[in-house]
């Protein structure tokens, strides 16, 4: 859906997204890192289980919720990536997607 205009030369950190190791620029948000790797949707909705992904990128819609290091419902657009971080897309109100 998105691409980088150019390599910004920032230092990289390694995170896992659904168990798959990926290199992402340090300081980037989890949402940006996940979007650039084409991993959409981020979750399924709590009521009817339909796919969702970031809408606002500024912390007000809560559609970017993912599991980070075992804690569900973290706002991916508000959390920065860190070395070794485990990001999982989530199902419904919390808990990992299969």
């Amino acid at each position: 859906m998105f691409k980088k205009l150019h390599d910004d030369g920032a230092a990289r950190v390694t995170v896992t997204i659904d168990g798959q190791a990926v290199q992402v620029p340090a300081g980037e948000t989890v949402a940006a890192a996940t979007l650039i790797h084409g991993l959409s949707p981020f979750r399924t909705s709590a009521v009817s289980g339909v796919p969702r992904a970031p809408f606002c990128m500024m912390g007000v819609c809560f559609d970017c919720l993912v599991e980070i290091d075992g804690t569900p419902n973290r706002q991916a657009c508000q959390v920065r990536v860190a070395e070794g971080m485990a990001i999982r897309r989530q199902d419904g109100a919390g808990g990992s997607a299969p």
Partner: protein
Amino acid sequence: MTARHELAVIGAGPAGLAAATTATELGLEVAIFDDQPAPGGQIYRGVERTPLADPAVLGEDYRRGAGLAEAFRASGAAYHPSCGVWLLTPEREIGLLDNGQARFVTAGRVIIAGGAMERPVPFPGWTLPGVMTAGAGQILLKSVGMVPEKEVVLAGTGPLLLLLAAQYLRVGVRIAALLDMTPRSNALRALPQLPAALSAFGTLAKGLALKREIRRAGVRVVKGVTSLRALGEACLEAVVYEAGGREQRLDSELLLVHFGVIPDSNTTRSLGVRHLWDSRQLCWRPAVDAWGNTDVEGFAVVGDGAGIGGALAAEHAGRLAALEAARALGRIDVAERDERAAPARAAVVKELRVRPFLDALFQPAPELISRLDDDTVVCRCEEVTAGQVREAVGQGCTGPNQLKSFTRCGMGPCQGRQCGTTVSQLIGHTLGRPVEEIGAYRIRPPLKPINLTQLAALDSEEGEAA
């Protein structure tokens, strides 16, 4: 120990940065808290370190933020980045999530400069992955240099939509179409406001220049678009729109929408500040005086969070609130405050002169809310539809807070940020009563998610301090 600050500023956008800088220069001890990792707010996001090779892409206005950030860094105000506010009490206790750690501070005065958010306007399919706001697109561009991979569809109304289109064109992004949803009648209604707006000729000229830039690039601009639908199963596949009574379809994987900006009022709501319905900007805003003071003692609200006025007005309003804080805290007297305030006051007046024109010109069509399809989801979190809201009203529900018990509307993680404005208007329209009589959601802390571990850490810390 709970730290105590003379002045706390919440938010490091133009209003907050200017307020903190001015207050520090006036000799106040200032702490500024912001949930972003770097100063600038949304408007000047990433301004100290843009990832773009050519900073000219973002335009001249954006660079003004660099000067603000620099003056702020030099001022010596204590800066707390990545530090969000989850609790605010009338006693001026502030609950913070400081880099993930919960802690409390108290303050002698508080200036809230929380800024704006994009107006959420529901339409069929707006919850699909691949439908995002123009602001989201701009944040990705400013902060990480990310742009749409394929052709993007832009839709809605407002200056930000034009700005984003121009910025995208400058870096070679292909725009499938710009669907202009500005009602055709707006131009006529805005006309009487034009003479006053001409004093802000620069602002108007910039808008026209953006339009020219977009037209010259050969972007397909569709005027008079009256409705929008996003189609797809797992993600967006196509956008269907109506213009001149005809339906058209565009295949696309990314749709960015924008319907103007509104104050992000959950923080001021939670504090119990009185809010007014702004019938020009179609949104709630806190009631403030000429210095930003609210009806809650010791709290001021400045910038777009107090009503949309733009970045320049925000910056000057921040300075005014800082002067008022210095007066209230006994550093300067009324005469000195007024004298020092003159330039900022004049600048605010000048900046706001163009607003009535812009507000009328870009006001979203009221039908977008009043004629919402019954099947369209209004509350993204609890997946409540417009039809369910109308049904609840039919069963005797008279306001947003009652609606919560009828439908759970507004009770999800976003705490009504996405549906609040819509719901007040929709209930008002269904009952045929003015929005100000309908009221808005009561907001309770925590203002952002805080988990049990973070709260427990707070307890043990308090225990040790006691």
